[in-house]
């Protein structure tokens, strides 16, 4: 196709992750976008041959820094089902609490980056300031700020005692107040709306047919969220997906904003209903031969793990299908017709996590 080819990425000041898009541009209007992935491919799935199934928990957590706890959780859920281990109920509630805290931190990070991509740096700093409270909660309850490593096969390694629980609930109240105070600056600002409403539209049929996941799907009107499957304690805690119907970047930002507030509420419910008991069951022996698919919900969408075991201490195959991999085809469909200056914000609105995609 005739036109100028402008490479966007993999290294670009506005991109948070190294995704390469070759934009075919004619007179400032994008005609086609050709994605190329593989810049950060590290071959983590091949490590199953070298590391045993218990050590793989640590490897899997490091596929992505932002959604690391949920990678570990899904892996542990898969192996627990293969080995026939049932974690105690307290572990289920704690896992919900930590996963939702991870979702809060990821969405706050994204809201900050979204503001930064628009040039709104003060709001970016404000969101990351709120996010520091979540990081403090992780450090105090789980031992580290980013890669918290609390999920093991059989339950969780750490517990939240009564004093910590009260402290966490106090911090959550502060965070909710501060996040709500930013609504007007983020969602109802004239300049932000001019740059995001009507840009990067993904219709409901397109989103469903192309296999979009997460807020990209829910921003176009499809009410699908893997937490509806009810793994861990999501059924007991009660959960409804957050849906918007416009399908543009503004709708996706609104979905993530509302999900942040919803996740804070879910953490409150999980911590309020913590049953007493142990947090971990010892998982003995090796996993029996078999194969299994487990799905869960990352901040960016549906995460799928395929695990194949052959009875030894090394897994035979581990395949991870991350949500950004499913969101790149919708992105390629969203971009034609946009002006070149609108491209960074639309690319950011699908929340690309390329270290997950390319493992």
């Amino acid at each position, binding site marked *: 196709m005739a036109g100028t080819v402008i490479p966007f990425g993999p290294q670009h000041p506005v991109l948070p992750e190294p995704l390469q898009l070759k934009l075919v541009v004619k007179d400032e209007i994008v005609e086609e976008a050709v994605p190329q992935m593989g810049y950060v491919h590290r071959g983590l799935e091949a490590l199953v041959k070298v590391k045993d199934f218990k*050590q793989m928990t640590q490897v899997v957590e490091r596929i992505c820094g932002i959604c690391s706890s949920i990678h570990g959780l899904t892996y542990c859920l898969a192996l627990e089902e293969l080995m026939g281990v049932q974690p105690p109920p307290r572990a289920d509630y704690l896992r919900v609490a930590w996963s939702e805290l991870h979702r809060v931190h990821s969405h706050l990070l994204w809201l900050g980056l979204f503001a930064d991509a628009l040039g709104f740096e*003060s709001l970016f700093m404000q969101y990351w300031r709120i996010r520091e409270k979540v990081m403090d909660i992780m450090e105090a309850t789980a031992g580290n700020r980013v*890669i918290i490593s609390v999920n093991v096969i059989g339950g969780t390694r750490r517990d939240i005692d009564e004093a910590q629980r009260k402290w966490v609930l106090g911090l959550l109240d502060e965070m909710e107040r501060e996040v709500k105070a930013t609504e007007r600056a983020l969602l109802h600002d004239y300049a932000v709306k001019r740059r995001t409403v009507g840009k990067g539209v993904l219709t409901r049929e397109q989103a469903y047919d192309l296999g979009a996941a997460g807020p990209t799907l829910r921003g176009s009107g499809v009410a699908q969220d893997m937490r509806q499957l009810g793994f861990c304690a999501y059924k007991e805690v009660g959960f409804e997906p957050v849906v918007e119907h416009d399908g543009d970047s503004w709708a996706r930002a609104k979905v993530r904003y509302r999900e942040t507030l919803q996740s804070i509420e879910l953490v409150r419910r999980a911590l309020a209903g913590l049953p007493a008991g142990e947090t971990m069951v010892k998982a003995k022996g090796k996993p029996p031969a078999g194969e299994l698919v487990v799905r869960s919900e990352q901040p960016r969408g549906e995460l799928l793990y395929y695990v194949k075991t052959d009875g030894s201490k090394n897994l035979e195959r581990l395949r991870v299908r991350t949500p950004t991999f499913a969101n790149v085809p919708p992105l390629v469909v969203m971009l034609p017709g946009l002006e070149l200056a609108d491209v960074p914000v639309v690319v950011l609105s699908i929340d690309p996590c390329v270290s997950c995609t390319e493992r």
Partner: protein
Amino acid sequence: MAGMTKIILGNLASKPATRPHPFEPHQPMEGYRGELINDPAVCILCGMCQRTCPSACLQVSKAEESWRWHPLECVFCGNCVEVCPVDSLSMKRSYLPVQRQRLEVELHVPKKAPKKKTSKTAQPEADKTEAEA
């Protein structure tokens, strides 16, 4: 910009969120997984930590009576602390500062006489050590 002005005025009136590092070094919270510490008086050189480590940063040698830890390869996951049968490993509440050279921690761990029946976990390992030695 009315929404943002209110936030900015509020931030100007409150204290800064930035920590004054390095003038006031930050003390991590209780339970932080920091530097790994091994007690040579307690360690029995069983090698469980080496087997569990996901990043292969520990080398235990009974013949040379040494325990080696490579802090720059360690991912500070805490698995070794959990599997240690005699609880000689622990994690300090501090993070590793910037290093200018490749760091390696080597400890000389003297061989120990087998313990009498004091604790359930130490006893089988001590017997195995004595049987192999």
